[in-house]
């Protein structure tokens, strides 16, 4: 196989980027869940250790991480509905692009509702 120099990136459109974002958010959520299962399991080992770990979640960096996690879950959920419609609704493939814009719209609205409250909690004390 020829190595360098690299070829160009395939210029896919909305469908390809939405798929990529779905993958990335899916992996992010999966790894969070993995960590979350582990830290929750810690309560059985030692409640003190559990409290110490959960305490670190109050850190603003973790707060931003939580915002990212919610963003990932929200996108993954709405786009998941879009994919389900593409799978089961006979006209779904024809409207996939419109549905992606609806997903992005719902995402923006949801995040606009959530972020101010959440960031207020993270940075503005309790």
């Amino acid at each position, binding site marked *: 196989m020829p190595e*360098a120099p690299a070829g*160009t990136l*395939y210029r*896919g*459109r909305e*469908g*390809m980027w939405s798929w990529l974002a779905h993958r990335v958010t899916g992996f992010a959520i999966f790894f969070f869940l993995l960590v979350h299962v582990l830290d929750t399991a810690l309560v059985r080992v030692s409640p003190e250790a559990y409290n110490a770990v959960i305490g670190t979640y109050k850190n603003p960096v973790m707060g931003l991480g939580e915002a990212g996690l919610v963003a990932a879950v929200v996108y993954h959920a709405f786009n998941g509905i879009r994919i389900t419609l593409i799978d089961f609704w*006979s006209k779904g493939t024809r409207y996939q692009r419109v549905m992606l814009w609806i997903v992005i719209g719902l995402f923006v609205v949801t995040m606009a509702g959530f972020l101010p409250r959440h960031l207020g909690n993270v940075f503005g004390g309790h």
Partner: protein
Amino acid sequence: MSTEIAPETGSAEQAPGGAPVREPQAAAVASGRGERPDDGSFDVTLRIRRYLPEKDATAYWEEFTVRANRTDRLLDALHTVKWEIDGSLTFRRSCAHGICGSDAMRINGRNRLACKALLKDLDPAKPITVEPIKGLPVVKDLVVDMEPFFASYREVMPFLITGGNTPSAERRQSPEDRARYDDTTKCILCAACTSSCPVFWNDGQYFGPAAIVNAHRFIFDSRDEGGAQRLEILNDKEGVWRCRTIFNCTEACPRGIEVTKAIQEVKRAMITRAF
């Protein structure tokens, strides 16, 4: 990066007669030296990904600048390069009219037929990148080994399967039944769809959109009796379920086939037949 010197750099001094200009003889005479009559022709640079295994083990980019007309397609520019600048440039083409499916290539990052891509639509002010289609082994320059692609095509049995006695007249079909699979009859097996699919790039075993399109053409044909068998073939780990509805195939198909729609219909047919 090995940058070979492009034989022509397309400067304004270039004599109009020396360049591949194919304008009518009656074109207005240029008013001064170095000026061209305004026939709408323009210089265009092709940035071609080349691979000449007998000379160099690695692929490299090479640029060629040619003179093109408003009505020229990328294929015409490739011909100019091959016929007038560098005869070693290798690509497939046969009909030159979008019907044989020989010249699918990646043009400015997207799979297109060179013979259907008008230069003026490709933003000729910037160099136009031309690469072989992805996911199939490159043999030379823009030519790839299509065999894995055709192997998948053969596997779905793309021919009419019937039982019983052959009728003495034609096999009749209502216009509605014919319309059911009309879209997928248009395929020219150019592989633009299959080689635009990220799933196929990562897993060459995947049947790919084109094979599914051609299975769809028979699965939904009321005269065919091999549907169940074909669904069985595609109900494979490397079959339709690999499709992640990325839509690159639909966007790439030069025949305007709704490829993803056809794949989804095959998936749904599998589900409804299973229950």
